[in-house]
């Protein structure tokens, strides 16, 4: 079933619409944030295993079975840790991107007095 993936694409489409068609700079930044949420969600949905648990090993798992047995059953029942590692860095990078965009928006507002991007094209120099 592909319904969760298609819903994520709807979220990405909302973000792209805000980036491309909105004239207020803050709305553009909000569009970037929404597009980022959509991409992170999509990659985590790819790694989900039905009935699986988080990829953290505990002592109880080791005591219930032997060493190799515990490793095999852990690997067969846990969700995928590789997308989680990628998205962990991506979330913090998203914060850096929003900070940089907010700094640009503040400076543009200081220079032009407005957040409207169509005004910024008219007031050259």
């Amino acid at each position, binding site marked *: 079933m*592909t*319904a*969760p*993936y298609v*819903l994520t*694409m*709807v*979220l990405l*489409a*909302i973000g*792209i*619409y*805000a980036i491309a*068609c*909105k*004239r*207020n700079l*803050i*709305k553009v*930044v*909000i*569009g970037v944030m*929404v597009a980022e*949420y959509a991409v992170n*969600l999509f990659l*985590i*949905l*790819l*790694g*989900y*295993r*039905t009935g699986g648990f988080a*990829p*953290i*090993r*505990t002592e109880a798992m080791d005591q219930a079975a032997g060493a190799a047995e515990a*490793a*095999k059953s852990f*690997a067969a029942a*846990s*969700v*995928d*840790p*590789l997308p*989680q*590692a990628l998205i*962990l*860095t991506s979330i*913090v*990078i998203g914060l*850096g991107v929003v*900070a*940089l965009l*907010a700094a640009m*928006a*503040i*400076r543009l*507002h200081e220079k032009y007095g407005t*957040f409207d991007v*169509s005004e910024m094209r008219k007031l050259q120099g």
Partner: protein
Amino acid sequence: MGVMTTLYFLMAFIIVAAVIAVEARDLLSSVVSVAAAGAGLSIIFLLLGAPDLAITQVVVEVLCLVILIRAAVTRKDTTYDARPNTFAVVGGLAFCTLLCAVAAYAFKAMVPFGDPKMTMSGPYLLKSFESTGAANSVMGVLLDFRAYDTLGEATVIFASIIGAYVLLRHVGRRTDARHESDR
């Protein structure tokens, strides 16, 4: 409630919050609404078995909220006073519908939801506790098997924050004759 029902409910919540964030006239309302979408996303991460991501997502969206409230100095979105650009709106909506339609067709060829292939993660999960000693496999992958990517990520954050510092400094923006070249 089953996992799928909660997942669909939370995704509907995120989509509604994103639509409100994009279309609201008051900038403060739209910023708060995108933070609500981020909180819903953090609950989805917890539901999908990613607790590290849930912690990171909720604190990061609180910080984004604080930064955006500081940046949105005017409360009102003045672009709604001028004439709306019909071509842009119609073109944007048409493109988004096309994107969703192509995605719905293309995703039929994907691996079904809930059954990942795990060609690379199978060996990682089997060996991560024995060769790294870390019980949290995500940290084992991030800081032992793939530590070079983490170095790249630290560099990207460093560069973007330095960019923000450079944009917001006051040195070199004075207009007297000594700094003619910096103007």
